[in-house]
Each structure stands twice: as structure tokens, then as C-alpha cells.
């Protein structure tokens, strides 16, 4: 897509060249690859650098961010997608709680089982409306000078996750080193991300081999941003800490920072 002529459009997403909002969708073909940990730490890493960041839990069927934070607002992202409120109504600012230079807003998906069951019966009409709402929400955030928007998504091909991919500028594919994951990732790149004309990049997470021997720089045409070794303590520590804030020297935190820097370089 040619961004050079954006200034002639009625609904400007880019106000001036120095103020572009970058929207990332953190997606994977399989569950349990580490999307939420990466999305959360990446969002905080951007905010620590002074970027105003909005992290949105679009994993509506398996919401996880609400178990990490205490919600302050009365509205869920589900309400926004159903047209019951604005995106701003769903945003909780954790800048002071976490201690970041930039704002770190988080929008949560409703973890109540009734709300999740309700999603299963949503028809294509609702999904079409949800995509439109997401696109409009993105514009609303861009107009309010949000620097980074990050969507944490549900794995595989579900309406909610593909809506997030469609609304993003770039997809970060979290990949685990298994045959099943590799086959599905390849299909996703060819059959979804490329069709929607999205930039992609891969993060190899929970890698079991020797990370120092890695020479592969691209896979299925997408650059590999980082290879993160399998470290069980990430799961246990993540229950109480945001590693990139509490332990910036940890290998995981350094990997996240490297991913953040490479994403900026690619723009």
C-alpha cells in the first residue's frame, strides 16, 4: 500500500510524517506459543521508551490480560466491538502503576464465561461490524496521537484474530519449533497475511535448540526478529512481574527490546 499520498484523504490516519501510529497484531497458528507474554512485555517496552502505547486483548475466547491487571473501567473490548461504547471507554492507564515514561493503556476482554459463550453465537453480521469498529477505533487512537497499538489475539483462524490482523499494519507471528506450528504458520502467511497485504515478522519462542547456532534470518518470506530460548521461569515469574520492567537484564527482556528495535527499523 502506498502511504505517500495519505494526506489527500478525508479521514487522515497520518497527521504528519513524524506522528505515525503503528499497529501490531501478535498472532500465532497455535495456542500456548507465548503471544500474551510477548505482547505485554513489548507494549511495556515501548512505553518505557516514552511511546504512548495501547494494548488491546482481542483474545475474546480466552482472555488473559484481565488476570494480570486489575481493571478500572466498566467497559470491556466486547462492548466496544458491539458498538455499545467508544474505544476510550475501555482503556485503563497503567502508566503510574508500572512506572513508564509513556502512557500504557490496556483494554480488556470480558473473562466472564457467559460473555465468552455469547461470542460463539455471533454471526457474520456482528463480525463485519466488529471489524469496522476496530478500524474506526484505530483512527480514533491515531487522531489522539497514540504511538503504538498492540493487539493480543486468539490463535489460528478465528474471526476475532483475523479481524485484528486486518486492522493491523504488521503481524508478529509467535512461532514454536514444532512441525504442526510450522505447517500452520506457513499456511497463515500464504493464505491470510499476504492476502491482506500485511508486513509479517516471526519470533521464535520457547526454542529448544542452541540459540547461538541460529543462522536462519527468514522463513516463508518473513524475517525472524528473535529466537527466544525455552525458559520455564518466564511462565512462573510472569504471574507477578512484567519482566521487561522488573528485570531488564534478563535474556527474555533483552530479546523483547531487540524485537522492539527491529520493528521500528522495519518501518
Amino acid at each position, binding site marked *: 500500500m502506498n502511504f505517500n499520498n495519505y494526506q489527500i484523504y478525508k479521514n487522515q490516519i497520518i497527521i504528519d510524517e513524524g506522528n505515525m501510529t503503528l499497529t501490531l497484531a501478535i498472532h500465532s497458528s497455535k495456542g500456548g506459543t507465548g503471544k500474551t507474554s510477548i505482547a505485554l512485555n513489548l507494549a511495556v517496552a515501548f512505553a518505557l521508551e516514552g511511546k504512548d502505547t495501547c494494548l488491546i486483548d482481542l483474545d475474546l475466547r480466552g482472555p488473559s490480560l484481565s488476570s494480570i491487571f486489575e481493571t478500572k473501567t466498566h467497559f470491556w473490548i466486547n462492548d466496544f466491538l458491539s458498538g455499545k461504547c467508544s474505544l476510550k471507554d475501555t482503556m485503563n492507564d497503567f502508566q503510574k502503576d508500572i512506572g513508564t515514561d509513556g502512557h500504557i493503556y490496556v483494554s480488556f476482554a470480558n473473562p466472564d464465561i457467559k460473555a465468552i459463550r455469547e461470542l460463539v453465537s455471533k454471526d457474520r*453480521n456482528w463480525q463485519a461490524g466488529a471489524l469496522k469498529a476496530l478500524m474506526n477505533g484505530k483512527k480514533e487512537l491515531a487522531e489522539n496521537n497514540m504511538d503504538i497499538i498492540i493487539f493480543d489475539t486468539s490463535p489460528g483462524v478465528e474471526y476475532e484474530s483475523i479481524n485484528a490482523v*486486518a486492522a493491523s499494519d504488521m503481524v508478529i507471528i509467535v512461532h514454536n519449533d514444532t512441525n504442526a506450528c510450522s505447517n500452520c504458520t506457513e499456511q497463515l502467511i500464504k493464505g491470510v497475511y499476504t492476502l491482506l497485504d500485511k508486513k509479517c515478522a516471526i519470533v521464535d519462542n520457547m526454542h529448544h535448540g542452541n540459540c547461538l547456532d541460529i543462522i536462519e534470518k527468514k522463513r516463508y518470506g518473513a524475517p525472524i526478529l528473535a529466537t527466544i530460548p525455552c525458559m520455564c521461569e518466564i511462565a512462573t515469574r510472569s504471574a507477578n512481574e512484567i519482566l521487561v520492567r522488573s528485570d531488564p537484564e534478563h535474556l527474555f527482556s533483552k530479546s523483547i527490546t531487540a524485537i522492539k528495535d527491529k520493528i521500528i527499523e522495519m518501518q
Partner: protein
Amino acid sequence: MDSELLEQVVNNLKEINAKLDQLILQAEFKEDHVGEKNKIIADSLDVITLLSLADHLRTTATTLFEIGPATADEIASVTNKERAVESNYLNQLVRMNHVKKYRDGRKVYFRINDSLRKK
């Protein structure tokens, strides 16, 4: 006695006939209604439908999603195609009911069809 019985049979038959007519009418109404509902589902431009569009139409529709209501000229500037080519693609999408066309002053604008969205 026989004529009474016969009259009763004829009346019952008339009643059954009337009920059958009613049932046929109800069935026809339901068919139309379901057909309409299916039509609505087919027209909504959700992301899976977007993925199944031909490449050229998908690019046009995606651009329209991204930049909001726009003229063919504005779409063409993003996709780097000729205005007439984009106008053709947009009109194809209008015929498929995925896009709506409207006039604002002297210009013709296109927008994603969301009039069918239920709250």
C-alpha cells in the same frame, strides 16, 4: 342420515382445505424470510468474505476499510491504479452489495456496506 353425514364430511374437507392453504402461505413466508436473512449474511463484508474476494477486489475493499468513505480517485491514489480501473472495481463491489455508493455534492463516494449491522 346419509345426507347429514355427507354434509359433515364436506364441511370437514373444506376446513382441512382452508388449513392447508394457510400452511402453504406460512411456509412461503418463512422461505422468503430465510432467503432474505441468507442474503443479508452473504452481503455483509466480514473479514472471511474479504479473504475470499478476487485479488483486485480485495485490495480495493481493504483500502476502503482502511481509509473510510472515499472517491474512486482517492482509492486509486493508494492502490496506484487508474481511476477508471478502481471505479470499475468499486462498482463491482457495489453490485455485490459489499459497498455502498452515495453522492455528496458533485462527488461520488464509496463506503463499506454496514447498514445491515445489528446492535
